[in-house]
């Protein structure tokens, strides 16, 4: 349907199939992302959501029969910060960037994530939240057109996660990258994204817009309703009912 206006899509995937052995992880999947949008990709573990993200990031080879268009500047934040322990925080932020003014750019990015004081710290001395903020600074310093977040807050404690959610939204508003966050946390998806995709059996099983003004509250009736709907899409309700019986 959008074939006639591909310019409005930052990311466009058609017919992406990925198999590992006899297991089909992604099955002729189609995906389009609009510029500057914030999309959450939900799915049970093993649903292929990480595989999709890795393909978009260029980490997994794209099959020849699939059509995949992504912008040239893509940045990723992984579940683990993946900082190089032998480089100071600011050097981690500028890794792979050409040298001119790298330090200044790193300092600006670190200031944005509130880590100015830690520019010269070793990663081993950072807390989990600080390390993940460094990873965000490393992604944003590249001014990516596509920002991929692979369950970036799953390993953080609940309080740190709340702060990181606010930080990510702030950064997204300022830099306006097209953002795709992979998560298994329904609340996180509803809290952050304007569109939630549910991945099931290798395809996008549900594509639901989130029409709520930010900041969003867990108590909001629309929030609760959407949460229920997404949980049932993920097949959670049935299991809960069975357990209760």
């Amino acid at each position, binding site marked *: 349907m959008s074939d006639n206006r591909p310019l409005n899509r930052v990311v466009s995937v058609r017919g992406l199939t990925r198999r590992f052995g006899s297991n089909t992880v992604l099955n002729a999947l189609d995906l389009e992302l609009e510029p500057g949008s914030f999309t959450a990709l939900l799915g049970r573990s093993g649903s292929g959501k990480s595989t999709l993200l890795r393909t978009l990031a260029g980490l997994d080879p794209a099959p020849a029969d699939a059509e995949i268009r992504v912008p040239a500047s893509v*940045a990723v934040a992984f579940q683990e910060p993946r900082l190089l322990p032998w480089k100071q925080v600011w050097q981690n932020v500028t890794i*792979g960037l050409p040298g001119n003014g790298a330090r200044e750019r790193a300092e600006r990015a670190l200031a944005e994530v509130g880590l100015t004081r830690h520019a010269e710290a070793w990663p081993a001395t950072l807390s989990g939240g600080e390390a993940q903020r460094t990873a965000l600074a490393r992604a944003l310093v590249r001014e990516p057109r596509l920002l991929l977040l692979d369950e970036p807050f799953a390993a953080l404690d609940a309080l740190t996660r709340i702060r990181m959610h606010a930080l990510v939204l702030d950064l997204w508003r300022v830099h306006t990258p097209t953002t795709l966050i992979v998560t298994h946390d329904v609340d996180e998806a509803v809290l952050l994204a304007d569109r939630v995709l549910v991945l099931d059996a290798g395809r996008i099983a549900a594509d639901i817009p989130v029409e709520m003004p930010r900041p969003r509250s867990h108590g909001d009736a629309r929030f609760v309703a959407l949460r229920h709907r997404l949980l049932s899409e993920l097949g959670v309700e049935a299991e809960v009912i069975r357990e209760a019986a």
Partner: protein
Amino acid sequence: MSEHALGARGALAPSEPLQARLPRIDLSRYRRFVSPLVLVLLWQAASMAGLIAPRTLAAPSTILASAWELVVSGELPRHLLVSLGRVASGLVVGVTTGAALALVAGLSRLGEEVVDAPMQMLRTLPFLALVPLFILWFGIGETPKIALVALGSAFPVYLTLFAGIRGVDPKLMEAGKVFGLDRRGLVRHVVLPAALPSGLVGLRYALGSAWLSLVIAEQINATSGIGFLINDARDFLRTDVIVVGLLVYALLGLSADALVRAFERRALAWRPSLVKG
């Protein structure tokens, strides 16, 4: 030795307040020296009482006096320089070769296939058993001695560095790739720093192996060096000089190890244990 003391202190640290901890460390530090000192005193007493004949083992006081004499006469420094020269040249050749081969084998599949199999076969050979062959090949001059040191130090460096390169966390490699590092950048910023800690462990092994090679090499037809000093003293039943030579070997080994550890502290400042310690 002091590492054990440090380890024990580190383990106690979290549960005890600072003030309570400090005096105890001092005490245990002094305690460590008590039993060696008692042993030396017993040895001295036994020598003085005539229980240990000088041709079996000289008294500690005699050894000290001989050491002083050898230093003042310039004999010990001269031999020491020769020995140091042999170890240094052998190490340069051995460590360079070991590191170069490890890079070739570690960074490419083809390199591994070509280099690793022969290296793994050769390393099972006790290299000291090659002495007769080395004498046939290189004669009895400096070359076989340096070659033996080089051979002894190449393998530890090769094995540890190769393992270090292959043990790099693939997740870090992936992150490096995503953030725009090319192959050279990955090697420089990810692979080599990641392999450095195990490479340095290999270097410490290499130093130990180098001294061992030196001891053996200097037993064969040497006309100078600490080994010659020891052999020469044997012919004259000078057990005091022999012990001085052994002490010099021990001190050399210790200082070389301390040197590498000092370098480790600087180069590996990022490691969690060192950062917090």
